[in-house]
């Protein structure tokens, strides 16, 4: 890193611009060194930042002059990578010590997001096999609006888009890596809405990440089981959150023709709802005097929802008599929502 820092990159600007840029870069470098002496990568990114841009930080953190530690800049064997924001748009810049400066790469979205809370904003690792490192940058317009996974072929050379036709869209992403076999990108839809509970997989072909949907069924089942495990967690949780998660998990089990798994999940959740210590009262919205009464009501309604789901699960398993029993129980508990 020190060797790299000792080399100065100057782009192909006019002389006056170069001098002005150099002076500003020195000034920024001095300031950043003063503020971030221990954070060479971030300081170096600041030094190479276009004058009218800010580092594309993870949102909510201070802007230029206070570079955060979440690594929007990343040092690679070939140089430095960082995302900056100019006039509301994101760009990925590569500062290479080997080759001449490459054009900055525009990225979609409004901010750099993390693949998971522990991940860096820029991921440099081998997706395919061998020793070639790919670059992954996740950007987003908002967690709710959806995110983009940008991938580039080779971290040691000029940045070439590896997604062939634009970034991969999704609500969340995961890298599923197997030693010697590389990594697969798994994109997920929004698993709170049954119409958007999808999984897509992307595999590395040698030069690009292509949607193959290989093992999509396995990832769908795995995601369903994660949701089911959340639903039947013994940790106390709000009644309706448990009911909502169970509803999606049951629907996905039934989609996958797994009614027995859905039945077992409903039974497990009913047991939890029978024990009030496993549920959390609504507090934020409820006057204290009304909380106990509302809690009882919530448990009753939540239990009705699960009996109804159990009825659907029995129906799917070919057990109409048991299904009718469950539908009747749901209707008795909550006649407004469920009819006998």
């Amino acid at each position: 890193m020190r060797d790299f820092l000792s080399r100065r990159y100057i782009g192909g600007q006019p002389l006056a611009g170069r001098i002005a840029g150099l002076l500003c870069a020195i000034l920024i470098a001095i300031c950043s060194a003063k503020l971030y002496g221990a954070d060479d990568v971030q300081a170096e990114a600041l030094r190479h930042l276009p004058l009218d841009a800010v580092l594309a930080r993870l949102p909510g953190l201070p802007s230029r002059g206070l570079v955060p530690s979440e690594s929007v800049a990343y040092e690679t064997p070939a140089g430095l990578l960082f995302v900056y924001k100019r006039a509301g748009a994101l760009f990925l810049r590569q500062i290479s010590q080997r080759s001449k400066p490459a054009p900055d790469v525009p990225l979609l979205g409004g901010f750099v997001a993390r693949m998971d809370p522990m991940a860096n904003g820029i991921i440099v690792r081998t997706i395919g096999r061998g020793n070639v490192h790919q670059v992954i940058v996740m950007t987003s317009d908002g967690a709710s609006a959806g995110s983009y996974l940008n991938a580039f072929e080779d971290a040691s050379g000029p940045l070439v888009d590896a997604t062939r036709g634009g970034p991969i869209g999704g609500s969340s992403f995961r890298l599923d890596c197997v030693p010697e076999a590389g990594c697969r990108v798994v994109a997920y839809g929004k698993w709170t809405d049954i119409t958007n509970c999808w999984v897509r997989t992307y595999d590395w072909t040698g030069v690009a990440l292509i949607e193959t949907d290989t093992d999509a069924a396995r990832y769908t089942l795995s995601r369903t089981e994660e949701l089911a495990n959340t639903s039947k967690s013994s940790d106390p949780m709000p009644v309706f959150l448990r009911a909502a998660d169970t509803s999606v998990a049951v629907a996905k089990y039934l989609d996958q023709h797994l009614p027995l798994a859905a039945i077992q999940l409903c039974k497990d959740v009913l047991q939890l709802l029978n024990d009030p210590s496993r549920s959390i009262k609504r507090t934020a919205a409820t006057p204290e005097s009304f909380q106990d009464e509302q809690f009882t009501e919530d448990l009753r309604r939540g239990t009705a929802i699960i009996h109804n789901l159990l009825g659907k699960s029995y129906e799917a398993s070919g057990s109409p008599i048991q299904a009718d029993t469950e539908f009747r129980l749901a209707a008795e508990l909550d006649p407004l929502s469920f009819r006998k």
Partner: protein
Amino acid sequence: MWEGAPGGETLPGTVTLNQGVGTVNPTLNALNGTNQTRYYIVSSTFATDTNRINVWFQVVGTQEGLVGSTTACGGTIQPNDHFVALPATGLCGVSVNLRATAGAPAPVVTTVQDVGPWFPHSSATSGNPCVGGSNPYWNTTGVPQAAGNPCSSNGAGIDIADGTFSDLGLTGTGTILWRFGQ
């Protein structure tokens, strides 16, 4: 006289009194910025009075989920989190008040901490086919762009974090009422 708003409405300018009582039923589509209210001035021969009326929006609300994701306001979504997402930037920390149904006894107050659902979105993807900039529908027609656009599978105008969603007593996508303010 009614406070004008970006959306514009045709609102009653006069009220006919019958034995001292008059009734109007205005429909307010929009408000200015993130104001909680629109004001109106009642003038009579002998007095003038200014009053404010809360403006509520009735839209489809969805459960955000996405625990662990980075929000547009810089947070990481926690289990049982409390916030909402509205489809426009620049609203981080703005207070909103929600009700599951009209007349619900217990409103839920929280803040905007994310951007969405559906808009703004820079490019169509398999995750979100909608494309467009910010959609502050509260300053225009009162109807979310997603509500009339086939790119959206549910037409939602607000996304509600899991804890807030549960506090409202919701268990799935459905119509809710919200307004700005405490």
